[in-house]
């Protein structure tokens, strides 16, 4: 399986892929992700796309598109910041705080939506290559159910190719003919482990991820004696005591991340 390297990335608040916002679904989720992608590559950080082209991009009617945008505005996910040539301009905000018992959203407009501010305020995000959020994933809700979109999002959340060679094995990894799936993943996706395993297999068939044998070694110099990813099995000399872990590797990754991984391991990734 070949790896597709991407030069352009954008970020999405991590809570979008969990169960923090039960109503952020269907059309709303697709349009929100589209907006994140567009503002991520737009130098002035705004979404400037006509209703018509927005509707075409996510493959839903103008009416439903308008409804979804209205919902996102009303609940402080995005904000209308003006209009140009009869086209509304929106910005994406840090996701609101949602109080489930009273079904109320509280705006986080006061928190600047940039990587540094978000990190320092515990608003972690995941970084996506723009190529991932194009085509059928936004356009085909029968093929790409919300759960599939959210699981792919969470796999990106745990995907640190430099530190783990792929997805953090504690979150998910292959184990002989089956998989290990963390409790946190099943809770935040609101489904059974088996559902997640099926989707991972489906994503594998669709070419979004691949399975890689990697070598992990205990760090003798650390008081934690943690296991560290040191390279892909086919490019690494193994020692007694090493662990072989079958990690999940996503196939479309930012080129900078792969550089980091090769630097950290001394070029021991076979891609």
């Amino acid at each position, binding site marked *: 399986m070949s790896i597709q390297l991407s030069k352009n990335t954008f970020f999405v608040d991590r809570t979008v892929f969990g169960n923090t916002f039960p109503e952020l679904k269907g059309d709303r989720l697709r349009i929100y992700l589209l907006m994140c992608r567009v503002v991520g590559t737009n130098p002035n950080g705004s979404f400037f796309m006509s209703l018509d082209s927005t509707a075409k991009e996510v493959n839903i009617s103008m009416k439903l598109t308008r409804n979804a945008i209205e919902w996102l505005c009303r609940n402080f996910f995005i904000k209308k910041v003006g209009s140009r040539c009869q086209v509304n301009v929106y910005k994406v905000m840090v996701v609101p705080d949602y*109080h489930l018992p009273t079904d*109320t959203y509280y705006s986080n407009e006061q928190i600047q939506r940039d990587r540094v501010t978000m990190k320092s305020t515990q608003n972690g995000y995941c970084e996506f290559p723009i190529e991932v959020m194009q085509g059928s994933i936004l356009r085909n809700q029968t093929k790409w159910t919300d759960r599939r979109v959210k699981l792919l999002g969470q796999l990106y959340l745990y995907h640190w190719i430099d530190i783990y060679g792929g997805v953090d094995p504690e979150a998910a990894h292959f184990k002989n003919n089956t998989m290990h799936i963390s409790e946190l993943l099943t809770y935040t996706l609101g489904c059974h482990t088996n559902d997640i395993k099926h989707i991972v297999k489906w994503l594998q068939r669709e070419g979004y991820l691949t399975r890689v044998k990697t070598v992990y070694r205990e760090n003798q*110099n*650390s008081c*934690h004696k943690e296991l560290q990813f040191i390279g892909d099995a086919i490019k690494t000399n193994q020692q007694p005591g090493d662990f072989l872990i079958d990690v999940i590797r996503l196939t479309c990754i930012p080129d900078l991340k792969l550089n980091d991984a090769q630097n950290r391991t001394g070029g021991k990734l076979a891609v």
Partner: protein
Amino acid sequence: MKQANPLHPPELKIKENQAGMIMQLIHEPKTLERPSTNDKLIQYHSMMYFQQLIMKKARAALRAKSLSIFKNDIAVEIEIVSVQSPNSLKLELVLKSIFDALNKSVITDDHLISNAQVWLYSGQKRYPKTKIHVRVEDLATRDYFHFSCEIPAIEKREAVTYNIASTMHRHASSAAEIKLIEQAFSNLQTGSTKQHEICHMLFLTSDPKKDVDNMLLMYIDVLRRQGYLSRADNIGIGMYKRHVDKSDERVHINLVSK
């Protein structure tokens, strides 16, 4: 009052009665310091995500009551309802990751937390999902908010180094302090073999900046190793700090059975 020599074990008094055990360590309460490294650090992502999810819940609960971020002394109460057995969970570490989620998002600083409790209740097999309830109270204004979520209890884990085979050491003075406390216990020949399930610690300190959870971490594993606190069945921990003059600094430990 005579001052304790920092190189000698602190004076320790133990009283046992029907209800449990009372201990007194006569010294300045210590805090556990993180291991150190010169390398870049990496955090555990599951833990960071857990903290973010808790932070979102906490902020929503605070704002739903139109309260602003807490600035006075604070009490935090955590209840974990789970089918998980107590021996697979260190309650103080779950508390610590929840404290980190609250810190700066709903309370200005976690050293303001002066009372905290964490309890583990066994859930029903019929409904096996773990639930966490958190209640936060401003002790000066008596304002409070609370929230619940269905989420696995995730323990705080210390960051590890980024680079392969890079070095990380335990904090030397913390390690030395632990040894001294351990010594204070081994010097004492108590006949008790009874293990307790619930532990409360009161820290009388002159330094308001000391975090109550970091002080607790200094002592709790010693109590487990010495056999006073059950490892397999620890279902409740309370921690409290009070401001005193330097000469009155103490640690009071109260062990109770369920």
